Every structure is written in C-alpha cells, then in structure tokens.
C-alpha cells in the first residue's frame, strides 16, 4: 500500500488523504469479510444483510460491501451480521466507528474542514477501527498522526525533492472536485465575520454607529431601501463592525467591511439568501452540543449557552424547544447553521445562529 502523507497544511492534499484512507480501509474490510463469508459458504452475504435490514424497515443506502460507512454501521448494530467476524471488537471500537461514520458523512457533504487538526482526528479514528482487526490502514493512520504532529510542532522539514504522490482513485478525485466547487461557493459568500475573499464590491456606503443610519457617497440616507429589515440589517452589521464606517455592497447584497485591516463579510444589504431554506452550509465546528429541553450545552466544556451568549437568548431557546426533543445532539457550522447530525444523507438546518447568540469565540467574527 502506498501511503500518502501531508507535507504541509494544503487542504486538497489533506482531503485526498482522508478520502484515500476511507477507500483503503473499506477495501481491506470488504476483502476480509468476503474471505470470512466465502469460507462459510455465504457468497451473497452483502445481499442477505441488505434484505435483512430492509425487512426490518431500516434504511439501507449502501450499494456495495466496500462502502466503509456500511461496515461501520453494520458492525455497530445490536443484531449485527458481521461484528463476530471482526477481531478485537469492543465498545471503544463501536464508539470510534460511530464517530468516524458521522465524520465521513460530513466529508462527503463538504462539511468537514480539511485542516491538519481534522486530519489528526480522522487518522486517530481510522487507527482505532482498523488496528484491532489488523488492517494495513492502521499503520498508515499512525504515520499520518505522527507527520501531522511534526508539522503542527514545526519540526517537520519537507524534502527538497517532493515525494511522488501515489495515484489517486477516481472516487478520491471526485471528492476533491466536489470540495473545490463547494470551497468556491464558500469563498464567494463566506460566513458572517469571516474573511471576504472576492473583489471589493463597487457600491460604497457608510454605516454611522451613532445614528445607526446608512449613507451613500453623497451623504444621503439609503436605510429606507431596506424597508422593514432596516433595523435587523444595521444590528447585524454593527455586531461584526461595531466602529462603523465604510462598507461595500455587492450586487446580491453581500456586504464587506474592513475589520482589523482585513476585508470581512459583515452581512447583507437586504434579506440573506437561503434564509427560508433548510440546507446546511459551511464546515461543521469540531464540537458537539446537546439540547436539554430548555438550553444548549457544549459537551466539551459543559458550558450552558444561556449563561455564555453575549446577547439575550431566551426567545431563541423557547423557539428551539418547540422544534427539538430533549437530549437532541446538535452540531453547528461556521455559517451558524444549527442541525441534528445524521449518519447518512444530508442534515437539515433547524435555525441559524450568529456570534451574538452563540458560545463566545466559536463562530467567526
């Protein structure tokens, strides 16, 4: 097996390594199970599992045994048809498999930020699910973890002659291409408070923080153009851009201002697009949350949202209590899209949060 390792924090390379590890692990698991079932005379074992799951009315969206999400899902079922075949199976394996499956689903929906920290997390999970069964991918995962640690510590020195990259499977190229497309969209219209990567828009306006009015270059107020949204828009701009001053508005209303010297997305001159849709946009923050029925808990720090948000959150929590069951697990993206994580398919946005009504320092801006 040719091991691809990162040389730096290049996002496409990192994404390619994660996708390649998934394929390598899937193939190894699939071959391993195939051999076990064939020895037992069960040649159609995958179809048999499909029929069994369907007969229970469970969703089964896998087309082949070499889909890693199938292996991870099936092995973790209480009535699993394969767990007894996988050596050194225990609860830790099941937990790691569950976690890895969720992350892979995010990867396939361009919601997993391909950075070195993510790669470290992913290679740890790959190691945990492949080491016990003795798959070769475990060695690769260990090597990736070690390399990532060296890069993050600044001790890794890339070779002067670049190492030849192993040939990428078609599926990896597809994942990379989908990510590049999604990245272009994100860069065009980044989350509130994130860096503006495009050209400076042509319409220059000025936000006065004292009067909360918006003026054009002739000093004429244009706030009336926003109609009933006027107060909401100025509040959003000032949330990210409290000093006020010049802002630049693009044709679709996306608005940029300089904050700490950097061009930054501060909001929209008008309604934000997709506000009425439920698709989840952006990269998922690497933290998990739980809805208690009346509040949101950050499961890592155990902090409570209502005691930490910069702005009043009572009304938002009351609305959430009508939409969410007590104990619901939650994730959020850098766009502030709050959702219940799913193992398979696309998650649906429950609501959109912003930095004022979320845990400090977690969302951009």
């Amino acid at each position, binding site marked *: 097996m040719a091991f691809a390792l990162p040389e730096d924090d290049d996002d496409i390379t990192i994404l390619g390594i994660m996708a390649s590890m998934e394929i390598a692990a899937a193939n190894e698991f699939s071959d391993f199970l195939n051999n076990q079932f064939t020895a037992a005379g069960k040649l159609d074992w995958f179809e048999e599992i499909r029929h069994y799951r369907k007969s229970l009315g469970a969703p089964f969206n896998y087309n082949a045994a070499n889909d890693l999400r199938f292996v991870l899902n099936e092995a973790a079922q209480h009535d699993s048809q394969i767990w007894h075949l996988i050596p050194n199976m225990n609860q830790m394996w099941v937990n790691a498999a569950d976690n890895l499956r969720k992350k892979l689903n995010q990867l396939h929906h361009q919601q997993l930020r391909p950075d070195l920290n993510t790669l470290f997390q992913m290679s740890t999970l790959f190691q945990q699910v492949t080491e016990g069964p003795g798959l070769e991918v475990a060695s690769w995962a260990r090597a990736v973890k070690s390399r990532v640690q060296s890069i993050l510590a600044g001790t890794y020195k890339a070779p002067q002659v670049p190492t030849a990259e192993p040939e990428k499977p078609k599926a990896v190229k597809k994942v990379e291409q989908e990510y590049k497309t999604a990245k272009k969209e994100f860069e065009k219209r980044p989350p509130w408070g994130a860096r503006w990567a495009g050209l400076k828009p042509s319409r220059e306006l000025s936000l006065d923080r004292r009067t909360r009015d918006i003026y054009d270059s002739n000093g004429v107020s244009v706030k009336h153009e926003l109609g009933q949204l006027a107060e909401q828009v100025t509040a959003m701009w000032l949330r990210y851009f409290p*000093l006020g001053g010049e802002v630049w508005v693009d044709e679709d209303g996306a608005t940029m201002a300089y904050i700490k*010297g950097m061009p930054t997305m501060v909001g929209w001159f008008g309604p934000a697009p997709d506000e009425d849709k439920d698709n989840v946009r952006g990269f998922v923050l690497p933290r998990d949350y739980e809805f208690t029925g009346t509040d949101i808990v950050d499961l890592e720090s155990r902090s409570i949202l209502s005691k930490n948000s910069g702005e009043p959150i009572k009304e938002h929590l009351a609305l959430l209590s009508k939409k969410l069951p007590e104990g619901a697990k939650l994730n959020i993206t850098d766009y502030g899209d709050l959702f219940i994580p799913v193992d398979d398919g696309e998650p649906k946005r429950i609501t959109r949060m912003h930095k004022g009504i979320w845990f400090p320092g977690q969302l951009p801006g």
Partner: protein
Amino acid sequence: MSELANISVSKCEIEFMPGSKPYRGKPMADRKDGTEQTGTLTTFRVASSDELNLIVGLIEWESAEPEVSPIDLISGLQKHNGLMRRGRMSIKHSADGKWLVVLSVLKYSPAKEYFTLHGGNIEEIDAFLGHSFKDLLAGSGALRFGNRAEIDGDTSRTANQLAVVIEPGDIQTLALAYTVTRPLAVINDYGLDL
C-alpha cells in the same frame, strides 16, 4: 542619505522617500503659543491592507525638539482620520545625547468613542503586532528599549513610560515605532473589544 528599502510590518508597508526638504510650521511643543519656524522634513509613506495611504515626516526643527508628524492622509477609511488629528510622536534627547521616543499607542476609548494616545503596554502591543515589538526595534538598530527609568535614568513621574532610545536621525527605527504605535494600532482596532 542612502536609499532605504521598503519594510513590511504586519498589515503595513513602509516606503521611505529619498532626500529631505525644508518644512515650515509650528513645533508640537509650541503649537499653542509658538511662532512658525523652519525645519527639515524627511518623509515615509505608510500603506496598509485596509487602504491607508499616509505620508508621515520626521521634522527636525531649528530650535525645538524633533518630532514625527503625519503630513498628508492621501487615502484611507474614516477611522484613519484620527491618525491626522492625534498621531504626532514627540522625540526628546536622552541623558547620553541620543533620541528618546516615548512609545504611546493610539487606543480606542469606548467612553470617548475615538482613538486617543495611551501609555504603551508591551504585552498588548506584541499581541496586535503578532510578535515582539522590542525585537523588531532592536533588529532595526534601537539602542535601548524599556521604561524611561531603565533606559534613561528617569526618576520623575514619567519614569514608567515605555520608550526607546535610538541614534539621532535613525528614521528607519522611528518609522517602525510610529507605524506600530499609530497606524497598526488603529487598523487592528486596538482597545475595541470585538
């Protein structure tokens, strides 16, 4: 004077203009009562990632202490206007005849709602600069860096002021000290809790 190369410091670029020219005006210390006098002006430009284009000058007066003063705000954002109104940097002579520059910093005052000069806090300056301010100035040729008691034997009420001692006329170190404590502080919204 030999031509100095441009210097990048964080989000700013400093460009040194060749030569010097006569400059007529009132020295900072005498600006209320004093009469105009002639000085020698040596200029540099500070440009930034947020569209600042500011011409700044070292003015060496005939009969007053030298100073660094904004000369012309060619372009910039509304918040950069404060640089013209409150951005002068005074220079004193140290006990050993060198130049002593007090490192006050433009900091946003929530009460006044604009940037005003505050005593320099080295940890906070390092934080918005992204690395050591002391090392930056030392690398440019600064002779001593610290509070005025440490570097100039000051025992008065100004003894705790953060300052730097440089060779007289060292415009490169002056430009760095000015850029970090004035334009870069404003660009980074220093003092504003974001």
